[in-house]
């Protein structure tokens, strides 16, 4: 899965779980702008629904600590699918 496919998929999931459309979501903006912290556990489950290889528990906890921006989430998923 290449970076464009992951980017489209992640932004689609964020749009499905927020008030924002795909066109309104920017990669460089903080994830908090689109998803509140109360909905991050839900977001992790939804990302898992779209990307089966993602480990939900790891993603959930990183959403609260290291994943700050939309592009961080994209990178997290991309690395899962492109681990050596």
């Amino acid at each position, binding site marked *: 899965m290449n970076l464009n496919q992951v980017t489209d998929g992640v932004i689609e999931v964020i749009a499905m779980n927020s008030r924002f459309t795909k066109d309104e979501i920017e990669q460089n903006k903080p994830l*908090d702008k689109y998803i509140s912290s109360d909905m991050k556990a839900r977001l992790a*489950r939804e990302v898992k629904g779209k990307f089966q290889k993602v480990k939900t528990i790891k993603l959930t906890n990183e959403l609260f*600590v290291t994943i700050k921006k939309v592009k961080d989430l994209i990178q997290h998923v991309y690395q899962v699918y492109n681990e050596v």
Partner: protein
Amino acid sequence: MYTKFITKFNVGTFVILLTVASSAIAQERIFSIGYGKALINNDSSTYTISIDLNRVPGSNEKGNGYFFVNERIDSTRWGYYAKPTADINLGSGTSAAPNNVSVGLAFGLAYDFKESKIGIASFCLEMSPDFVGDKTLRNSLKYLSLTPCFQVDNTWDGISIFLGAGFSYSLGKRSILDELDHAYSRTSVPVSMKLRAFNFAEGEKMRLHLSATYKFNKVFNDIEVNERSFDFFNVKTDFYLLKNLAVNFTYNCGFEEPLFKENNAFSFGVTLAR
């Protein structure tokens, strides 16, 4: 007597420290240190340290913090999770907080509704063993609670609002030092609201977090209290001046576990977050 107390204290302390350690890994708000004032008696100015993990007093914070498990069930919209919760208040006074140690381990089922006109909504059914104690752990509650709840979240550009409401039934025991355990059961209706305002034009620096919780308790079986119905209200704000540093204000009013003593106190201080 002291051996029993020390044993109980050590077991309780171990459980608390274990929960805190596992939760603190991913906690947004690590702790707060500050000054408190109780408004009922004229005697009590207190210094407080509070550690809040996954919890607003009187209501579970379903979305925050560290999870042991968080999985989706195949291709359905159902999921399940397990997470520790903790709300620990230390300091020179106990009156600024309704309870001083509150820890639990929540196991939950969640149904995530599709986005609709009302917002992003989820239904949760949660079961949790809980421990709620006073400062010395001489008087504590141990119970199993079952809580169905509904929560909805809306996020716009620069502001997000979260609303949650539920119904909780708890069944367990009250432990008082040097006494036999007594039966304890209650129902409660917690309603919570959270508001977050932020200005990303200023990076992540300027943020305001406000949460308010109302909780109605109906106690069915308890040796400690004569009254049976109790209200409790809590407001907590954090205003972030820097990315990891905030000033906070907390106000508690009403009656809450474990002692159900009248509480009317405010405190303010500094929050360290991550």
